[in-house]
């Protein structure tokens, strides 16, 4: 960890010792505004962490069903229902809650303003959790809209949408009260991303143009933008704030970040149809999607370059800093997005589309990029809010379990998908492709187990950063007893 951060720890430790309640969130400064911000931020992260553990436990269970299809054969524990719970839970509960919590914190801190409304923040969190609980229960009972990544029934997605609207109002109102004239780039990404997502949630909910193939077109639009206009901009936005804090240096190029922001906005909404290549969707729609999938290299490469250039020269000490999470996230962004562009080409789609390769890709992006960026943001910013730092060892264990786990996971499924595609291409029997992929599914479960173990450590770390006893407190306690 950076030396100035260590100083901070010592400084905070002193302050902490003045507080008398162990359960209270200690304060970085004594100002009540900060206490509010810390309280809100901590609650969002803790809630998100619970959803992460739950949703990935479901994911792990589901992965074992590939090897043991007759394990837990009851409706409530069946693959077809749990899969949606895993994806919706990681998307709309874990990542969304964590990113909104981070975005609210960044909005206030980067603007030098206080959070516009604590009550509104609690309402958002309550709505998001209500939607997640109702969504999980209804899916497990077999009630689903039947469209990947928007499985929740429409009225549950209304609740989710209200959660997003209240959150974005809070962000905008907070930034409106900023000190300077300038809006920091993180807020462009987080507020922009949330606004687009609200538009998308509404657009995808209206039923009257979603019949037959029309619904396929809307689904193509939705399933890709749910990632590209929501998780991508928010993760990038949070990183644009967290990384300079961790490295104690400004972002390499502000204008490169703005450039990536606008190109992302322009190109992304057009590329969804690449999920339905060779389908009966109009050929020109698929071609347009492929062209703009290539165009996505522009924001991806400029964003990646911007982060990597910010990192330059820090490799001497960075391996002990939460910045490692962001570094993995940046590489996850680069690899996952470039892979997405390559996958969009028809020649490669012939091989990889509809295979497990796609599942590997979605984990490389949603986990290798988004989730690692979120962790980087949380480890960087949550201690700054609460004054409680996690154990460095526990943070390291979390990092390595998750990083090694996701590498095994993605490698196994990429290999499985390639083999499936080749089997189909060679005209082997379909069941042969199932048998050939089976050993790789076992490896996927191995990777998934490591990832899940990492999440348990992360949940412990969140505890030490919020409501539990932090590293600094323990150190202080030792000093006292000695």
């Amino acid at each position, binding site marked *: 960890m950076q030396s100035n951060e260590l100083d901070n720890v010592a400084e905070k430790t002193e302050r902490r010792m003045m507080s008398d309640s162990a359960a209270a969130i200690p304060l970085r400064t004594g100002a009540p505004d900060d206490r509010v911000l810390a309280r809100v931020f901590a609650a969002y992260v803790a809630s998100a962490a619970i959803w992460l553990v739950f949703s990935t436990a479901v994911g792990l269970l589901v992965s074992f069903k590939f090897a043991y*299809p007759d394990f837990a054969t009851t409706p409530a524990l069946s*693959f077809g229902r749990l899969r949606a719970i895993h994806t919706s839970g990681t998307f709309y509960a874990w990542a969304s809650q964590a990113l909104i919590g981070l975005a609210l914190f960044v909005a206030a801190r980067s603007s030098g303003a206080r959070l516009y409304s604590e009550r509104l923040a609690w309402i958002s969190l309550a709505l998001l959790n209500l939607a997640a609980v109702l969504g999980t229960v209804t899916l497990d009972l077999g009630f689903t809209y039947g469209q990947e990544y928007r499985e929740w029934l429409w009225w549950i997605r209304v609740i989710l949408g209200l959660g997003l609207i209240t959150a974005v109002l809070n962000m905008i109102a907070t930034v409106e009260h900023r000190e300077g004239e300038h809006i920091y780039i993180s807020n462009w990404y987080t507020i922009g991303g949330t606004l687009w997502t609200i538009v998308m949630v509404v657009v995808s909910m209206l039923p009257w143009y979603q*019949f037959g193939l029309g619904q396929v077109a809307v689904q193509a639009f939705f399933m890709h*933008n749910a990632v590209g206009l929501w998780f991508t901009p928010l993760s990038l936005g949070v990183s644009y704030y967290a990384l300079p804090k961790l490295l104690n240096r400004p972002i390499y190029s502000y204008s490169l970040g703005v450039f990536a922001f606008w190109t992302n906005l322009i190109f992304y909404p057009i590329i969804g149809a690449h999920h339905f290549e060779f389908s009966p969707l109009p050929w020109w729609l698929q071609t347009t999607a492929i062209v703009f999938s290539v165009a996505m290299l522009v924001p991806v490469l400029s964003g990646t370059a911007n982060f990597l250039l910010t990192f330059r020269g820090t490799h001497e000490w960075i391996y002990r800093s939460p910045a490692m999470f962001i570094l993995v996230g940046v590489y996850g962004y680069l690899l996952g997005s470039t892979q997405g562009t390559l996958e969009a080409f028809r020649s490669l789609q012939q091989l990889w589309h509809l295979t497990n390769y796609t599942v590997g890709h979605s984990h490389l992006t949603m986990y290798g990029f988004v989730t690692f960026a979120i962790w980087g943001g949380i480890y960087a910013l949550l201690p700054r809010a609460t004054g409680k730092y996690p154990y460095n060892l526990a943070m390291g264990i979390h990092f390595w379990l998750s990083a090694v786990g996701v590498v095994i996971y993605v490698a196994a499924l990429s290999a499985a998908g390639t083999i499936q595609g080749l089997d189909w291409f060679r005209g*082997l*029997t379909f069941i042969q492709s199932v048998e050939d992929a089976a050993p790789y599914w076992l490896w996927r479960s191995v990777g998934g187990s490591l990832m899940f173990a990492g999440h348990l450590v992360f949940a412990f770390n969140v505890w030490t950063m919020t409501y539990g006893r932090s590293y600094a407190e323990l150190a202080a306690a030792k000093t006292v007893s000695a």
Partner: protein
Amino acid sequence: MGVLPGIWLSKVPPTPGLKPLTPLEARGRDVYVSEGCFYCHTQQVRPLSGDKPFGRPSAPGDYAYQTTELLGSERTGPDLSNIGTRQSSSIWQYIHLYQPRAVVPQSIMPAFPWLFRVVDKLPPGEKAVPLPPQFAPGGVVVPNDDGKALAAYLLSLKQPALVPTQSGAAPLGPSSEPLGFDATKGAALFADNCASCHGAEGKGVPGTFPPLAGDPMVNAANPTAHIGAVLHGLSGKVINGQKYEAQMPAFADQLADQQIADIINHERSSWGNRGALISAADVVAARANEPLQKQATSPEQVSPVAAPAPSFDAAEGSKLFADNCAACHGAEGKGVPGTFPPLAGDQVVNATDPAEHITTVLRGLSGKAINGQKYEVEMPPFADRLSDQQIADIINHERTSWGNQGPLVTPADITKLRANK
């Protein structure tokens, strides 16, 4: 980018021949959605070689009645666009839903026992699901309402016949390949099309799906009955004193002659079977004799070898085509994109039943939508311009050229349909 194509594509007219779902089938689709079947089963056949086992390439109109759309994004299990044709036996569907590994040992599909109920006595009007003993729960298994609805939905998934015009779509079967038996191909085709019922080892499922190992029909010197069973399916047949209720689907429209010959030869040379091998020509002959067999009061008595296969004068057919048809459809049968439909690879031209093909030539056509492409230009009727023999020659030329493999017609067929106004 989501809304405008959505509005536009919501209005795609249904593929001709596509039926709306019945209330029971619609309920079955709800079960399909609710159990998340679409996470592992696609319903989109792409114009790619690997997708051929699943049916013809999907057309936009195929989805006109499909809301919720279920194209899917992952194919851990096979595509189901045409499963109602590929696996038309409801008994198989029930066994497979109750316990997939009862019929496909390597399957990793979840079992859905909650779509069934186990009762002590078979209720009146119900049919028991004939599970193999090692998977039977000890009681009579019958599908519940959800199970029946799901099976009805699966059986409703049938692709209406259509012309593949997209680039990459191949004609129905290889025509230039030399006749002969490729053991590897035969085994693969058997695994794709037959093994889920008859078992990879040809043992079948006792009492439900007949074994092929040692079967008298498979080992018979005269292959007619064997070919006929594969072409047209079977049901309710008594074999060695055991009556088999499950319906065997017809493969005449799903497989090319060479493929059927490969499958039959695989069956005739595996698991101890020693039936005489056949060639694709035998299958062609059996296909061509189909009307004769149907007319015959007792099909067993008809010897297809004795019935002359229709033949035609290739030179005459080619000339008549050049004179009457090539101006629009092109000498190579390629048509003019968007204006005149191609005949090479056309489903009507390759159909086993030539009635639509003959009627089209006799009475002409206009405004037909083929693979989502509407052809506005009117095709003239030829009934008053050409004799039955000439029309038969033209049709036979089309059915044997540019990779087409439709069974031949006779002037008598034309006469019959001409009268049939």
